């Protein structure tokens, strides 16, 4: 030791822990409509203010304001509201199904439903989404069959993934929804490669990839952004910043120092920071990035600023690490409520109609769940065990054939 002052190691801590009052005073919420909307052909170097702002369309009076208003029809807005509502009601139902022992695991998207719903509407049917496990609203917006979701969650005889995957790790190629996996971040680069392939073939399809803010710390994040930038891949790379990675707050992923959108700057990619609880803002920003990609202007990084209102999963108790009323104090509100109020303001919707919608969707989900339960819940029904040995390779090799026989199937 010399006589220099001792160094100190900095460990970021969230502003509030259990038993303390939630504190979001560090979060700056700019007014809706304030952010400029650059032309999609604008050079990245001219857009370096964007990652530090927050693109917002819906104001405090539930009006759509400013240059990012995507000017959607009521029909489109209602489609979005329906997908968000469906996701929420479905999540509740399946969370309870887990507590009743009907499945081993579940993860809710509570508070983040606007993201997948809006993006599923922006992206084309031939485009491909490389989602995280918290993107159910994409499938809901594209009307993926509820029965197939339930069957997958129950791993029963009709499970589209033949009992091989953990609940909610869906794969739905026809719905532009890439195969999920439990390990985080490892599909971010696949989105880039898929987009490079489309460009290589001279096609017109684009890709959209997702990670959470916690996963930006993985090497996959850096790799994907590097490749996307180098080859100007027609891809949209999203970071859902929901403030929490299981129990670690976003500061542990680097949020104290800068925004996640701003990480794009170092790669020479435009970075947009978007109110993730504002359906219209998510829609508009994704539309902008999609147009940029489609016109060979390259990738965009979008940070979707939101809040994970539920626990991380059915295996998590968030009251152990954050105030239990933190979600209710989140300054950007609730995506469902905000979109609903906007539609009410437009006189295109009412509380009664929302109530009727919830009832209708609840019935549909109940019916699907009941039908799936009729096939069987976890352990009560499963695909033929032969399925365990299939699809390891295109054709099984001798080991797999022998082992299947060894099991007697």
């Amino acid at each position: 030791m010399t006589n220099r002052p001792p160094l100190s190691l900095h460990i970021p801590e969230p502003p509030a822990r259990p038993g303390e009052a939630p504190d979001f005073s560090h979060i700056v919420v700019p007014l809706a409509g304030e952010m400029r909307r650059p032309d999609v052909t604008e050079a990245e170097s001219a857009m370096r203010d964007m990652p530090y702002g927050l693109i917002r369309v819906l104001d405090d009076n539930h009006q759509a304001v400013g240059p990012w208003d995507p000017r959607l029809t009521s029909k489109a807005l209602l489609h979005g509201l329906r997908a968000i509502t469906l996701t929420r009601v479905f999540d509740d139902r399946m969370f309870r199904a887990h507590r009743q022992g009907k499945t081993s695991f579940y993860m809710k998207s509570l508070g983040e439903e606007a993201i997948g719903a809006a993006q599923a509407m922006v992206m084309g049917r031939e485009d491909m989404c490389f989602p995280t496990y918290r993107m159910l609203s994409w499938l809901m917006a594209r009307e993926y069959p509820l029965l197939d979701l339930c069957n997958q969650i129950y791993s029963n005889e009709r499970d589209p993934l033949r009992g091989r995957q953990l609940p909610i790790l869906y794969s739905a190629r026809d719905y532009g929804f890439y195969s999920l996996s439990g390990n985080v971040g490892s599909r971010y680069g696949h989105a880039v490669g898929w987009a490079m392939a489309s460009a290589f073939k001279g096609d017109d399809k684009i890709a959209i990839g997702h990670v959470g803010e916690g996963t930006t710390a993985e090497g996959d994040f850096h790799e994907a952004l590097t490749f996307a930038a180098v080859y100007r891949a027609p891809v949209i790379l999203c970071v859902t910043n929901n403030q929490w990675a299981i129990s670690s707050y976003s500061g542990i992923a680097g949020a104290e120092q800068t925004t996640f959108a701003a990480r794009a700057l170092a790669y020479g990619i435009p970075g947009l920071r978007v109110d993730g609880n504002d359906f219209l803002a998510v829609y508009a920003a994704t539309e902008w990035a999609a147009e940029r990609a489609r016109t060979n202007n390259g990738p965009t990084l979008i940070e979707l600023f939101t809040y994970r209102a539920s626990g991380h999963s059915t295996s998590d108790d968030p009251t152990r690490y954050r105030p239990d009323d933190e979600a209710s104090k989140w300054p950007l509100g609730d995506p469902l409520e905000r979109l609903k109020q906007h539609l009410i303001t437009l006189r295109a919707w009412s509380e009664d109609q929302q109530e009727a919608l919830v009832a209708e969707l609840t019935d549909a989900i109940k019916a699907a769940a009941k039908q799936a339960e009729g096939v069987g819940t976890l352990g009560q029904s499963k695909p033929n065990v032969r399925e365990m040995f299939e699809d390891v390779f295109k054709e099984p090799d001798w080991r797999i054939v022998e082992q299947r026989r060894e099991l007697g199937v």
Partner: protein
Amino acid sequence: MPRMNMIQALNSALDIKLATDPDTLIFGEDVGYFGGVFRVTEGLQQKHGVTRCFDAPISEGGIVATAIGMGAYGLRPIVEIQFADYILPAYDQLVSEASRLRYRSNSEFWCPITVRSPYGGGIFGGQTHSQSPEAIFAHVTGLKTVIPSNPYDAKGLLLASIEEDDPVIFLEPKRIYNGPFDGHYDKPLKTWAEHPAGEVPAGHYTVPLGSAAIVRPGKEVTVLAYGTMVHVSAAAIKETGVDAELIDLRSIVPLDIDTIVESVKKTGRCVIVHEASRYGGFGGELSALVQERCFYHLRAPIERVCGWDTPYPHAFEWDYFPGPVRVGKALRHCVEAVA
């Protein structure tokens, strides 16, 4: 028939695929304009265009990840990892993604990618230019692993690998890129010009995955080897005069179990030779398979001649490398063993 060394044979395979399959493309570090640090992709960019054969950032994880995405799209990417020692940053992609994509998606998605990588020692490559990582891939369900030992097989196996709809790790023994090497480092270098397998058809042909080759028939002992060790074993057999049956496995996964079992049942003895370190090496799996299937035919314990359980050293190259002396010793030991 044209004569080629292994580099030219591999280059010929890649050239044929680029010319005939518009869904193939090649990328990796230094493979584009420069033609690769071992010249395997030489001339391909000039001939087929920059989008068919291009340079990649120094990011093995990124190279394999983007290849998987391309494969899911419908392309057949062929990527290069400059040295097998540097494949580990991509290990998560290979293990967690490439190998499982088909299984976990019920064949909605799959990735017909080929990952080429020079491997093996004998070149004073030290710790990070000499390793033989085949065992860490053999243990991964859903990956195929191929290792040629001569120019003819290199071209035919590479063409077969590229045409596979499953992901293939294609390990190229860099010590024998230019000529066969039998471990006699103090003797003059040989080239493929003298070797019958240096005759390589100019056009398209395949050597199917999962088919071993009997390099030398014999009655006294079966030798299982692949890559450079095929040549080392051949030298040891010649020098000891043991009438050994030498089998070049050619692919680790899928493995040609029938050829192995048939041979060991005939000879009653088995010596396994690989460069990779012994403990947990692929020789352990081979030994178990032979023991399980040929137990009542075995007349001696199965022997393994492998790299030592140390990192691959620099100055001790020839103390580490399983050369013909060590292989010969094991052969004699095995055939002289009396139950």
